[in-house]
């Protein structure tokens, strides 16, 4: 009887979840400093239950998405013997970074309908890509292929460690060429591939210290920044010349 009830509950009302995610992050923010060479975020947490554990295959999915940015995907073709950009698809918003980690094979922990609804896997996350253009799917695939090669899009099947059906943790490696902004981490708890609880938090990624100061100066005081660059360049050139002059003497 209990089992049947639990089963019905899962299908009928995921909102009245019996299972809840309690989350921790290894860091609240990612600071881009002068020696920044990528970062690794540890996402860990526990599943809290107020009643006995329901049945069904338990799954945990962690996604981390960088800020959406406008991009242009171009395709080259041979024209008059040389390779030139001939077609392009403009995309108003594509995630600059996207990682999805799961506790098991995707087909086991996530139903396609839930994926479609929550936009969890990479093809779903970049789905809204320029659908009005003919042949745009090959451009979307190219976008995913290139960003996967650069580790900007990652699918980490089975990379979430789930112990005793309660504690979970995963490491998300972020490359050095990150776009600044708020990174949204989403954690999905699934039973037989159906999402039963969701937890969303954000991690700010920003430049700090000198990197921040220079960036702001370049954008807000552009002329001053340009003059500063020139002053540094000219004095460095003069200093080197003087130093070598002394060495020769």
């Amino acid at each position, binding site marked *: 009887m209990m089992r049947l009830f639990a089963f019905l509950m899962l299908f009928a009302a995921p909102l009245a979840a019996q299972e809840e995610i309690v989350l921790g992050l290894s860091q609240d923010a990612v600071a*881009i*400093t*002068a*020696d*920044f*060479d*990528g970062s690794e975020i540890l996402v860990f947490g526990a599943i809290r239950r107020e009643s006995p554990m329901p049945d069904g295959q338990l799954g945990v999915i962690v996604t981390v998405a960088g800020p959406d*940015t*406008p*991009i*242009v*995907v*171009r*395709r*080259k*073709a*041979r024209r008059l*013997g*040389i*390779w*030139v*950009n001939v077609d*392009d698809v*403009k995309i108003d918003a594509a995630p600059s970074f996207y990682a999805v980690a799961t506790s098991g094979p995707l087909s086991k922990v996530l139903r396609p309908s839930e994926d479609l609804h929550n936009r969890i896997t990479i093809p779903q996350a970049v789905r809204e890509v320029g659908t009005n253009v003919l042949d745009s799917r090959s451009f979307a695939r*190219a*976008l995913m*292929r*290139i*960003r996967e090669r650069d580790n900007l899009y990652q699918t980490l099947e089975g990379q979430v460690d789930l112990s005793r059906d309660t504690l979970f943790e995963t490491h998300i490696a972020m490359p*050095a*060429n*990150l*776009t*600044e902004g708020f990174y949204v981490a989403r954690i999905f708890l699934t039973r037989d591939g159906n999402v039963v609880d969701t937890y969303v938090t954000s991690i700010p990624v920003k*430049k700090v210290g*000198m*990197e*921040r100061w*220079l*960036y702001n100066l*370049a*954008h807000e005081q*552009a*002329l001053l*920044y*340009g*003059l*500063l*660059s*020139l002053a*540094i*360049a*000219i004095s*460095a*050139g*003069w*200093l*080197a*010349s003087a130093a*070598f002059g002394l060495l020769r003497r």
Partner: protein
Amino acid sequence: MQIYLPIAEISVNLFLLLGLGGIVGILSGMFGVGGGFLLTPLLFFIGIPPAVAVATGATQIVASSVSGLLAHLKRRTVDLRMGSVLLIGGLIGAGLGIIIFNYLRSMGQVDLLVTIFYVVFLGIIGSLMFIESLRAIRKSGRIPTRRKHNWIHNLPFKIKFRVSGLYISVIPPMMVGVFVGILSAIMGVGGGFIMVPAMIYLLGMPTKVVIGTSLFQIIFVTAFTTLLHATTNYTVDIVLAVFLLIGGVIGAQFGTHIGLKLKAEQLRILLALLVLTVCFKLGLDLLLQPAEVYSIAKGIGT
């Protein structure tokens, strides 16, 4: 050791930057070219966004040219009057070049046109210099051929350029300056690779004076280009520039030394070979099928 570049927004190896700067610095000192025609494509290869590479390349050329110019000023191998005429033209050209660059950017074909510019100019200049130098070396013993009379000598507004030993119109050097200024803004180069041959073959200046004078013009034109890029596109990366120029200023000192020990014809033939190599590499990229026919550009219309 990795270093994060605040404007380019990527992390690159520190020693790679120092090495690139050093190579370009040696060339700058040896040939009187800013080295931008080599630096800018090399920066593309290590993953610096093209807009940042062009703007920062200009900044770096200022630094390596300053130390090169100081070395030439001491040896009195700079024609300041000729340099000033070239400079006035250069500033006008740089302004025009920025307008053209931003127009190409909005058309989305800036990469292709920049590459074609490189292939065409490097190809023509490289071949001409190579043939000329070979001829000069074969006729060794005789003074290299300087055309005494051509259409240039019939133009008005003649000025005496004492250091170069010339009495010619200001129009041809002014035009050379404008042309080089345009290339400086579009291709992220100092323009020495165009200006040096133009001064030798078109204006008929002596080779020893050509290098110092072109450095003089390059410094001011690239400084102007840097300011234009910094204020309109925000693409000058000062951290990238600093590491490139540390390598660059050291390299330039060695380069000037090497340059003085080689004969003018040898210098010219080496520069010709270098120009042709870069041209060949860039041309190949246009002709061969790329491994990935798709590319991603950040932002709309860049």
